[in-house]
């Protein structure tokens, strides 16, 4: 009882403080806000990327994200309960422009079991929005922030126990385009790595629950691109033509494992390492930490399959961290010749 009455008093005091300061401080803010054009963000399922921004001036961008808890295959024959932003792992990519005001509406369906919230690394402020958005099933929360810093940022759920919410797939990315925009490319893709923890080994079959102890011990059963072992292979492979300029927005949701992102058969012309504005050139493998990102750019040179991997290769070949980019077009033997095999001379 003591706690509760104390809480109520503080809460009221806090609320009246909020109301009071809102009357004075925010009127100027409200005026400029009202002048902004309003648009609703186009959110696409990975590996697709929302279209580049053509605006040259700021806008108020409304982002509607719904938390969905769903059972899906983590690898063919094995199911897992995913917690998602928008029904996909990673959650749908958000694309705004530096200086935009973002109104984020987070909905938690009544059919959900858990409370959730969102922390966007692009937000300047305590918790990145997490404390404003904690919602029980059947509720929604709205909060607004200004996208001050250009770059590619991870967002994720920050509800206790955080590692479990992330290990179940609750992460995605927000791209804040610099004011001058990004250079045009032929294809853009959205890929995030994540580690998953189940009592059974990779592909054990049936419905596998989350394994807390393995998560704490960082012993992943699955290391995946886009939430399933086959999300970027077979008919889901990324596609390109010879001589396409490719940009991949790559992130690592974690919760625990750093990615050594590499594409077998390509050299990155540019890596905007750590998702920032500077780039390194001629990169073979780039390190992407959990809760971090990189923008990689390269040009396809010859036809065939390029293979995306975490170059900590046990993860690629035993835990699912593998993806394919299928490149079509004319052979270019001056760059990449056919192999010629013959017997060793016996003389």
């Amino acid at each position, binding site marked *: 009882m003591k706690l509760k009455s104390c809480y109520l008093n503080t809460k009221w005091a806090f609320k009246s403080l909020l109301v009071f300061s809102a009357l004075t401080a925010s009127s100027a803010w409200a005026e400029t806000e009202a002048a902004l054009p309003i648009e609703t963000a186009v959110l696409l399922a990975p590996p697709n990327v929302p279209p580049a921004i053509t605006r040259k001036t700021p806008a108020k961008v409304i982002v509607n994200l719904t938390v969905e*808890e769903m059972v899906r295959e983590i690898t063919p024959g094995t199911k897992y309960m995913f917690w998602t932003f928008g029904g996909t792992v990673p959650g749908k990519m958000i694309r705004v422009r530096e200086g935009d005001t973002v109104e984020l509406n987070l909905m938690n369906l009544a059919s959900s*079991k858990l409370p959730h919230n969102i922390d966007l690394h692009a937000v300047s402020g305590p918790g990145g929005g997490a404390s404003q958005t904690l919602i029980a099933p059947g509720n929604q929360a709205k909060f607004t922030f200004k996208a001050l810093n250009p770059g590619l940022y991870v967002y994720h759920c920050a509800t206790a126990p955080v590692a479990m919410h992330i290990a179940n797939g609750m992460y995605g990315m927000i791209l804040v385009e610099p004011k001058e925009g990004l250079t045009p490319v032929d294809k853009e893709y959205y890929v995030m790595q994540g580690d998953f923890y189940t009592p059974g080994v990779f592909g054990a079959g049936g419905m596998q629950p989350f394994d*807390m102890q393995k998560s704490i011990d960082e012993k992943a059963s699955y290391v995946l691109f886009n939430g399933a072992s086959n999300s970027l292979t077979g008919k889901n492979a990324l596609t390109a033509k010879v001589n396409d300029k490719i940009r991949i927005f790559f992130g690592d949701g974690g919760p625990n494992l750093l990615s050594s992102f590499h594409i077998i058969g390509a050299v990155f012309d540019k890596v905007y390492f750590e998702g920032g504005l500077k780039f390194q050139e001629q990169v073979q493998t780039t390190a992407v930490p959990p809760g971090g990102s990189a923008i990689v750019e390269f040009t396809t040179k010859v036809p065939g399959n390029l293979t995306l991997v975490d170059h900590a290769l046990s993860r690629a070949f035993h835990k699912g961290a593998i993806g394919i980019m299928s490149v079509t077009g004319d052979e270019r033997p001056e760059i990449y010749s056919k192999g010629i095999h013959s017997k060793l001379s016996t003389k």
Partner: protein
Amino acid sequence: MRALGILALSLISSVFAADYMPIAGGALRTALPTDGETVQVAAFKLRSRPVNNQDYLIFLKNTPQWQRGKITPLFASSGYLASWQSATDYSPNHAHAPVTQISWFAANAYCASEQAQLPTWYQWEFVATADAQRKDARNDPLWRAKILKWYAEPAAMPLAASTQQAANIYGVYDMHQLIWEWVEDFNGLFVTSDSRNQGDQKLLETCGAASLSLGDKENYAILMRIALLAALNGQDTVNTLGFRCAKPMQ
């Protein structure tokens, strides 16, 4: 005929009247170290099973102001008993399944009708540490994994009837693996909505409440209970959120 009906109703309610099990109390190593890592829980009595749909229907017939459609919106959101066929018909829910989609205010009023109140967090947590054989099973990884599994299953409605799993050592059923439960002091828990904060929470510290230096960091099932309660307002209702009541020992 009417008198017969009432007689029958009271017979049914006495047959199914919930037992209140004595809990001796003692020291609790809590996941929510607001008042220190170990707190003393005084002896009390706890309802052996969550309040079920049949129990709640009787309450609604006796106190129609808590019926769906009559309840003041201050006391319950629009989700209140939304799965019921009508204000006084709990189908398609099972009579002996825990009643859910209940606000804190409604749960309080129900408990008062049993001359009881909602358990405090510490009371609830004290009993929730037990399994069928042990008063504190929390160090058993298998038990922890078992109760954690419920959170990774979809929130299927309608809910199963209660008392289908073994009672714990106190004779109390369904502390885990069936529903979330309201507690009396849910809004004093103060985990904060951002579970990673470790300090600099003047507002919270004013009340000596928990920052997220939660104890028992490896008991995810309990941490999720705390996170849900922290996300709630008194009028909120959740499909899988029900309650039970507690009484003083006398």
